[in-house]
């Protein structure tokens, strides 16, 4: 009878799975180290944070369950959260754009150099600044931006223009922050893109040159589409990193004059560490996670590689 056969089939397939589990038991053993670590230090804290988003907790006294009150406070009309969402949208968009473009520009230029030795020198030139601790360039840029003794205002004074407040004024703080790190050629990104470019089979480039395609044309039609997997990786990583970083806020702006440079990650850190309100910090954190997750899905869906297009 059909029911019995179906049940037998189900049991059969379950038994098959069990057999495969037994056969590959060592795989689970190999994964155990990783999962022990990430369950203890990543999954459990995340679950705990999710739970505490619904409580009021100062980290020491027992927490009080308050349901959606924290989320309501975040989205209330007076909340700074809207401002910080706008800021992070601007910052993240800018970060992603510049991570996808400037290192790629550098890589494309290096790719075209004929002399291998020169290419190596330039590669090294862009990679070496990685060793400088990130704190350092932040502090150097801060000095550059100082409204009274900084280099930029000195230059403005020499030219005869009025000094700007750069990081100190609510109007210019975010833009100044975005400009930091010029020319934004990150050594690691450059190498990743270069790898992608070097993986392009030589025949395609040869054919294009024979056909008389100019450098620009070759870049847009051949090199760029074939580097898309690398771009996708860098973009995803950069989105994730930029959405949760608050190092500049911590070291330089403190959230900026009048919340001009406040981002959700900074709000979260402040709520927890300065104000001692772990409940609302957890709520912000949960929202950040949802945001990152959504953006990663969007990223994967929209950027399709050239090979996928050709297959269509």
């Amino acid at each position, binding site marked *: 009878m059909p029911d019995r056969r179906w049940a037998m089939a189900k049991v059969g397939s379950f038994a098959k799975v069990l057999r495969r589990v037994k056969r590959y038991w060592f795989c689970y053993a190999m994964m155990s180290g990783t999962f022990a670590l990430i369950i203890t230090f990543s999954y459990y804290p995340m679950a705990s944070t999710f739970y505490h988003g619904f409580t*009021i907790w100062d980290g020491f006294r027992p927490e009080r369950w308050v349901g959606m009150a924290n989320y309501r406070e975040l989205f209330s009309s007076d909340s700074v959260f809207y401002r910080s969402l706008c800021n992070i949208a601007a910052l993240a968009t800018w970060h992603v754009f510049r991570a996808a473009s400037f290192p790629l520009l550098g890589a494309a230029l290096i790719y075209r150099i004929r002399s291998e030795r020169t290419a190596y020198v330039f590669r090294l030139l862009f990679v070496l600044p990685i060793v400088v601790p990130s704190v350092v360039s932040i502090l150097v840029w801060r000095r550059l931006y100082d*409204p*009274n003794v900084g280099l930029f*205002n000195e230059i403005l004074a020499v030219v005869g223009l009025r*000094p700007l407040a750069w990081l100190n004024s609510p109007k210019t703080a975010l833009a100044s922050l975005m400009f930091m790190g010029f020319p934004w050629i990150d050594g690691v990104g450059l190498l990743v893109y270069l790898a992608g470019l070097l993986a392009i089979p030589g025949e395609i480039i040869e054919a294009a040159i024979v056909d008389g395609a100019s450098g620009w044309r070759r870049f847009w039609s051949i090199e760029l589409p074939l580097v898309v997997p690398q771009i996708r990786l860098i973009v995803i990583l950069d989105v994730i990193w930029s959405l949760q970083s608050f190092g500049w806020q911590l070291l330089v*702006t403190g959230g900026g004059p009048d919340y001009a440079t406040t981002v959700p990650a900074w709000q979260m850190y402040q709520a927890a560490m300065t*104000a001692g309100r772990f409940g609302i910090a957890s709520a912000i954190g949960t929202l950040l996670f949802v945001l990152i997750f959504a953006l990663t899905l969007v990223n994967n869906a929209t950027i399709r590689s050239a090979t996928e297009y050709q297959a269509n």
Partner: protein
Amino acid sequence: MTLWFWKIVPWIREETKMGERITRRQLMRAGAVGGLAALLAACQPKVVETVVTKVVKETVIVEGTPEVVEKEVTRVVTRIVDAPTKAPEAKKYTILHWGRSAAPTDPKTELEEGQTRRVAYQEIADEYMELHPDVEIEWYRFPAGSSINEWLLARMTAQDCPDIYWADTEDIWPHINKNWALDITAYLNQPNPYVPGNERWRDQFEDVAIVSQTGPDGKMYGVNMDGAGVMTVYNKNAFAEAGITQEPRTWSEFLSVWQALLDKGYIPFGGDLDGSNCCYQHWTEAHIYNQLVWDKIWDWDDDGNKVIVVKELAQHTQMGDALDWESYLKMMHLVKEWTPFLPTGYEGHIDYRDLFRKGKVAMYLEGNWALRNFKSDPLPFEFAWLPFPIITKDIWPDSPEKVVRIQGAWGAMQYHIPGYLAQTDPDKVPVIIDWLRFSSQPENVTALCAETATVPLTYGATGVPGLAPFSQHYDRAVPYQSWATLSSSAYQAEEALWQAYLPGGMTDAEFLEKAQRVWNAEVDKVLEANPDWKVD
């Protein structure tokens, strides 16, 4: 050592048997050995013991008279000891003490020419350790780059905080809520055995010091042996150059002085709206607001201790009479008049102390503790102190035209004991208290204040002569500071409001409305942490 050498060199030179060029591997190995050697060399402890004593003339204010007397004293000026000559005996108690600015200079510090070491607390500790051989006093070096709140949070969670830590009076209540500070009322009511004739330890301290350590529940959570005052320090050369002959007293006089300085190319006043760069905004509000609400402020002082505390603010907000918004708006107008004389970019962080040293900024609000920096690192010009401008009746009809001063308990020696010790190590608490009692002897406080340049709040202790301007007459020590009294997040919210309004971004009506909304929201957060303060 030579054996090693003959083993290492061949190892490095392995690859050049046939005179080839040095390979990468060789370089790496050589580099590794070299680097390791360098590191080891750097880590060798210096085996040096130097004790340098000097006969030094100390100036001491004789109490009650304007006389200044010089005494000759033999002081130990430097002591660098790295290799103890005998093994230390086993100690039963080690007190880890974060002394803040009262702590002696780290022996590892290298000083520039003309700078002096702080040694007073080390001498006091040595004296104490001789009396009590089973106690060891160790100095905790606060990690640079940490902010105090974050550091305390981590330490209290991990329960490895120093046995004595420093915290400012505004933070007392949030700390107590989390059991970060131990209730030591009982100890303060016991006599101090080191001070003859003392019946209760708390009697040693002035009222303002007692109040600053008392929580809204009436219990005391720390000791406060010294305090601070705030005045405006100014560059006398700058004044001379700008042709200013008379010290300004009123608000309008200050405005014209600032204009004269600006015309001469100076930045007249150093200040910024960055709360972490103590403390222009905070102090300005205290000085101006208290003048504007002169008598009304006592309406808020429910417990009569002459200080407005967070509970009073929270409850009076609920009752509807805090804050006085008309005065608050007037204060904002006055500060707005002030801003053209502040450095460019005052909305953010400005290093105005550094600019003052360079002679670019003519004056700024500073606490008396800066005297120790001015002494150890002399300014290239003469300086003097001014009281805060008096708001006259033509500016604000209700103004009392009095001199206000920030003078109170924000000293270097505001010490607390972690609350968890009562459970984890209750036997240690009396030992810690005993050490604190020993520290609070008047002669010890005098010695410490001589180094920190703070104002002693311990009866019988005297301060440095440089503090004379701070003994000038003033009419009232401000009872209310700023939104910081409410909470640190309220302080940040206020900072943001000022940053939005002062450069001209908001109309008065917008500002008032937003300020009131934000204030009420912050009060709600305070009530969330203290539900029993709700008024029905």
